[in-house]
């Protein structure tokens, strides 16, 4: 088997087993962040599906971005996106990440996350419930697998 083919298969089987997520707070209020953490802990326990929070964007398949993007975080969000290996999916969690929410008219807010990096899945809510966050991650899995199969998402 060719090396590239093997690699493709490994990637595929890898995604069918586990999805590693990286959580990035770009200037949110912590509401969404604690709901992400609640989704990981025993009541919702997404780790049983192999969804795992990792400490570095270089290990991640999915970026969970919370909060509206503040001016100092603008360049850093771009850098984190560039550090995440392809194929990747970005999930904007909460009203602020999706539309800037209540922080729409500030001098220090650069707008929602899709002003900075491409976003694939939007999870609305202020904050979204853990079930909604899990639903968003499942949509991301579907999209990732389509990307891996070489289809247009």
């Amino acid at each position, binding site marked *: 088997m060719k090396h590239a083919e093997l690699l493709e298969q490994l990637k595929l089987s890898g995604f069918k087993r586990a999805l590693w997520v990286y959580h*990035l*707070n*770009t*200037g*949110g*209020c*912590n*509401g*969404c*962040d*604690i*709901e992400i*953490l*609640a989704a990981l*802990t*025993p*009541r919702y326990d997404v780790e049983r599906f192999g969804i795992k929070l990792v*400490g*570095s964007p270089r290990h991640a398949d999915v970026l969970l971005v919370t*909060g*509206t993007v*503040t*001016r*100092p*975080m603008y360049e*850093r969000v771009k850098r*984190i996106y560039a550090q995440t290996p392809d194929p990747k999916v970005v999930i904007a969690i909460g009203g*602020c990440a999706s539309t800037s*929410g*209540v*922080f729409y*008219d*500030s*001098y*220090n*807010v650069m707008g929602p996350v899709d002003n900075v990096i491409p976003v694939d899945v939007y999870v609305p809510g*202020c*904050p979204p*419930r853990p079930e909604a966050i899990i639903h968003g991650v499942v949509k991301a899995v579907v999209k990732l697998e389509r990307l891996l199969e070489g289809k247009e998402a």
Partner: protein
Amino acid sequence: MKEVRLEPEEMSEKKLEKTCPTCFEVPIGPIHPALKEGIRFTFWVEGEKIKKVDIRPGFMHRGIEFMGTKRNLVQLIYLAERICGICSVSHPLALVQAVEEAAGIEVPPRAQYIRVIIGELERIHSHLLWAGVAAHELGFDTLLHYVWKVREPVLDLLEDITGNRIDYAIPIYGGVRRDIPPEKYPKLKDALRYYRSLVDDFVNFFLRDPSIEARTRDVGILTREEADVLCAVGPTARASGLRKDVRQDWPYFTYPDLEVKALTPEDMGLEVRGDVYDRIVVRLLEVVQSIQIIERCLEEMPEGEITSVPKVAALLAQLKKAEGEGIGRHEAPRGEVIHYIRLEADKEAPVVWKVKAPTYSNFMPWFPMFEDQEIADIPIVAASIDPCICCMERVYLVRGEREEVVWKEELLRLSREKTKRVASRLARHAPWGRKG
């Protein structure tokens, strides 16, 4: 007392090179797995020991006070709620007190009891959240999962009462937006009984565990004097032996009747050392205290109205006419939060809105806490004050492309310059200022 160095010049690398040639710099943040929010620490370490620390905030600043001056007062509550998602009822509670003082709005007694109940339920959820994060920082992920599992019932309760797990939208000027009907009392009491039954487990897991004790005893010490001088608030101050609590010193709502006392480790028969262990002790004591407060509130809560101005349109009209200023204080889970507001007649938006969050006061105590600690203790010491960065970031200057955070010294310098400027202008124009 240890000398507390705070001046930015002291922190500069040049000065450090002279005093500590073998030090090297370890930057942490703003994006780092040990941090939940963006803040940058720069540590100068010699071997394993931290010699100096510099902290650079500003990454989470959203300009909320500025936005507040463009919205009407009812919209302001929703904005205040989103200053912080963890203490999401503390900020609105302080804000409504400030506006009620400015506009002279009365609050019915039942509404005050409901405010206290929601505030204390939030304290339980916030302290449990902190306990989980602290366990995680120490490397006890089992304990993190256990604590977050037992935290869910209080969120269920809040959802049942207010309609949302976080951001409850419960206070409004003149009262609260939702009543707690008597049918829900048994549910509340069951949940409180459940938390009471867990207290022994918590004491065993957190306070009697030898490895937790080894990691937290005599780590990140803040002495009583330092806490006093640096104006620490909340559990951070109380763990250093300062009996300081807004609910005791400046009682509001129904707290005067409830006779809340500030708790220190002495109340558990322990000697106060001001370390991380003491901060765990204080937070556990406060969970028990909150349970007692809610139980008493449920017994004493009178029947009656839940708001003095039920119609929002009438409320807005009344607020538009109001003129004056007000201050609201609330003991948030992390310490004292203060809101100042100034209203002018015929203006829907406030003219001035100033927020002081507890982490802003607990920021300076970080400096003595970090001194001479090991690098490995950074996460737990940083977490021990229960920092809430998004609450804190209020002052931030953007000048064109340049961005800078205003230090206290810088503010003081600006303020002194302004005084000089104003004084000289006055001296030129005033008759008593002319010489000769």
